[in-house]
């Protein structure tokens, strides 16, 4: 308590009047500084939380590359890579067969459309069918060899897995102080050099099978004479035959690749990074080889966001223009809250709406005949990128609308007056003065809308169709109507099932990091754009 009382009452003077009063200060804090510390602490806590999240993401994700690298090394050591070379050849053959079948279907339905009876149409295609069948069967020797090799390689990989597990188990027992039990665990290292000999030994057999394959392929091509299809389809047939010939010409390359393949060739260090960033496959829990390539998910996320923005940007911006420039005060008072209320709808409710109503109605619409010209219609899947995109657009509209409306309202009134005073109409004023003057504000509104949709999870998980594959962009806009999976969706879907610490778990964290960096980048760019906008308006 005040201890100045003990000293004699001082004279009144400026020097005394301005001196700080001595008060009781818990922990040496005055009320002012305590309040300051409190606010400081709150701000620091928010930043600390952000840092912790980043550290956590990085810590959990960082192990991924090491594990992925090991996985890829075993893929090579156990000979899976070798077998995949042959499988790749077979896959390309399967593509060729599919093309032949697709062509047959086209010719057949064309004949029906021209009034031919089904039997007659089938009979006319007898020659083609014989060719297609021979084409399909040409690969059977190579295929049976490949399936034998697949089993061998998979068995090697499994033994390696058992060996790794046993080492882990031993280490665990030793840590627990049970050295005796640890010694009892049998662990036999896999001798890849010996195992791989069985695979390499198959090369002559493969060469024989391959020669047979090429012979059969050529024989089947000889069957496809000009009479096997109606004259109008000859160009397509020769296109198909040319593709088959090009394919046959790659056989020596495949053989050379197999001959040159070495199980002990080192895996370059960057392989596990590129396999993640540019990998076109996300394949988990497979008996063969797991691949963690982010590309299908990344493209899925981008495609869904693109659709959402294509819908939300015109709607949001035009609504903002209407509210800020055209609507009367009465309209404003209810349009603005109504649009902003959309943001309050829980995303799971929107997703539910998408599954139950929107997907179904979109498909019904796509099946109407007068919309048949739209690429991708009729939709084959009820839930696809477009369904999810529509709902995401709905969620992005309030964000884009509010920010765009702010940007437009912040354009100084004197720009508008100057334009009107020069005899511009309202529309001219909006398009030539207000929109350009608020352009950076509008762009940042769109960017933040983009940030909103790319991070959205529930709606895409429920409505995007969840097929992990890169959409077939050869169909043009039809790609919009294919099911996709997204980065957010995959984390939400798979995180609950993975073993913590496993490569799959870490791969999901890596996806999370990519998503985090993307959102960070978008927000950063948006902020920079807004800064520029403030400066340009002055």
């Amino acid at each position, binding site marked *: 308590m005040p201890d100045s009382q003990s000293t004699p009452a001082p004279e009144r003077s400026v020097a005394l009047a301005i001196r700080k009063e001595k008060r009781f200060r818990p922990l040496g804090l005055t009320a002012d500084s305590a309040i300051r510390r409190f606010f400081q602490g709150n701000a620091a806590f928010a930043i600390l939380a952000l840092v912790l999240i980043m550290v956590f993401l990085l810590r959990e994700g960082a192990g991924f590359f090491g594990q992925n690298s090991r996985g890829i090394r075993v893929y090579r050591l156990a000979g899976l890579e070798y077998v995949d070379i042959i499988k790749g050849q077979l896959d390309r053959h399967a593509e060729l067969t599919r093309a032949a079948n697709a062509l047959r279907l086209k010719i057949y339905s064309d004949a029906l459309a021209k009034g031919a009876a089904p039997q007659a149409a089938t009979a006319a295609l007898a020659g083609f069918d014989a060719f297609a069948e021979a084409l399909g069967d040409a690969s059977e020797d190579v295929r049976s060899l490949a399936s034998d090799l697949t089993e061998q390689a998979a068995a090697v990989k499994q033994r390696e897995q058992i060996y790794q597990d046993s080492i882990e188990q031993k280490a665990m027992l030793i840590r627990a102080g049970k050295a005796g039990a640890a010694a009892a665990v049998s662990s036999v290292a896999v001798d890849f050099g010996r195992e791989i000999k069985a695979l390499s030994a198959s090369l002559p057999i493969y060469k024989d099978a391959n020669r047979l394959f090429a012979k059969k392929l050529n024989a089947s091509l000889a069957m496809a004479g000009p009479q096997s299809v109606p004259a109008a389809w000859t160009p397509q047939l020769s296109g198909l035959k040319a593709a088959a010939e090009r394919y046959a010409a790659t056989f020596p390359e495949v053989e050379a690749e197999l001959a040159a393949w070495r199980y002990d060739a080192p895996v370059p260090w960057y392989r596990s990074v590129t396999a993640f960033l540019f990998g076109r496959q996300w394949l988990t829990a497979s008996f063969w080889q797991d691949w963690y390539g982010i590309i299908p998910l990344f493209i899925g996320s981008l495609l869904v966001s693109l659709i959402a923005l294509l819908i939300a940007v015109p709607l949001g911006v035009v609504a903002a223009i209407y509210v800020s420039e055209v609507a*009367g*005060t009465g309209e404003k008072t209810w349009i603005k809250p109504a649009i902003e209320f959309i943001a309050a709808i829980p995303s799971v409710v929107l997703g539910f709406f998408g599954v139950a109503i929107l997907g179904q109605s979109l498909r019904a619409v796509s099946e109407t005949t007068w919309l048949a010209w739209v690429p991708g219609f009729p939709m084959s899947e009820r839930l696809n990128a477009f369904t999810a995109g529509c709902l995401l657009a709905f969620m992005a509209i309030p964000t884009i609308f509010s920010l765009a409306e702010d940007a437009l309202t912040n354009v*100084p009134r*004197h*720009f*508008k*007056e*100057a*334009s*009107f*005073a*020069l*005899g*511009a*109409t309202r529309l*001219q004023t909006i398009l*030539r*003065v207000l929109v*350009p*003057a608020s352009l950076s504000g509008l762009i940042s509104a769109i960017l933040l809308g983009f940030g909103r949709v790319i991070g959205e999870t529930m709606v895409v998980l429920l409505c995007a169709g969840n097929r992990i594959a890169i959409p077939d962009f050869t169909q043009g806009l039809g790609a919009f109507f294919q099911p996709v999976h997204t980065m957010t969706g995959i984390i939400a879907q798979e995180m609950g099932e993975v073993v913590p610490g496993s490569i799959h778990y870490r791969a999901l964290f890596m996806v999370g990091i990519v998503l985090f960096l993307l959102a960070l980048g978008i927000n950063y760019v948006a902020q920079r754009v807004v800064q520029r906008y403030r400066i*340009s*308006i*002055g």
Partner: protein
Amino acid sequence: MIAVEKLDFFYGASQALHGIDLRIPENRVTAFIGPSGCGKSTLLRCFNRMNDLIDGTRIGSGRILIQGVDIHDPDVDVISLRRQVGMVFQKSNPFPKSIFENIAYGLEVQGVKNRRRLEEVVEKSLRGAALWEEVKDRLHTSALGLSGGQQQRLCIARAIAVEPRIILMDEPCSALDPIATAKVEELIHELKRSYTIVIVTHNMQQAGRCSDLTAFFYLGRLVEMGRTEKIFTNPVQTQTEDYISGRFG
């Protein structure tokens, strides 16, 4: 040129102008003076119907005639009216575009696309606003890079580019330094030959220097209007004399 007959004007419920009656002759500079809130700017903004942009404004009674046509007649197109009656604002307000685009704007919104024509008009208007020599080498740089006085002359150039008959100026020099003000006043003097000019000003000396007629407003009423020399040397109303001599306002 402009005739105002018994004009009452309202912002919502409050009346801003009471029974204004005045005539503005052609090719003269008419100054509106009076203390803040006396309604002089409001009256000025009636002449090109800029008040239409403000919610809740309305004309109570009376008319405004320009060359005998009531500008509130339903047959009058407000867009065309504003092309005839240009305006320069208190705060210079060039668009955040290039100098060229600023001047060409008024023509472009009329649908003029011919590049040659636009270039001619831009040069003519900038010469008319005594700005050409200063900016001819940077027509395509941002207008916001000009000084305050240059920006205001740019706004005048922009107004005359659409060839109006009347130019309204709402305290055009209030944000300018004395040198820039002198240039604008000189310009007003030049423009008088081709345009009818109405200028609102707080600056007595300015009204004295550059106007032919002066109208003094007080509390929404026109107190006195006449030749500038007469208003300044020998006003009829004591209120006018008090204001001019600086006793109030």
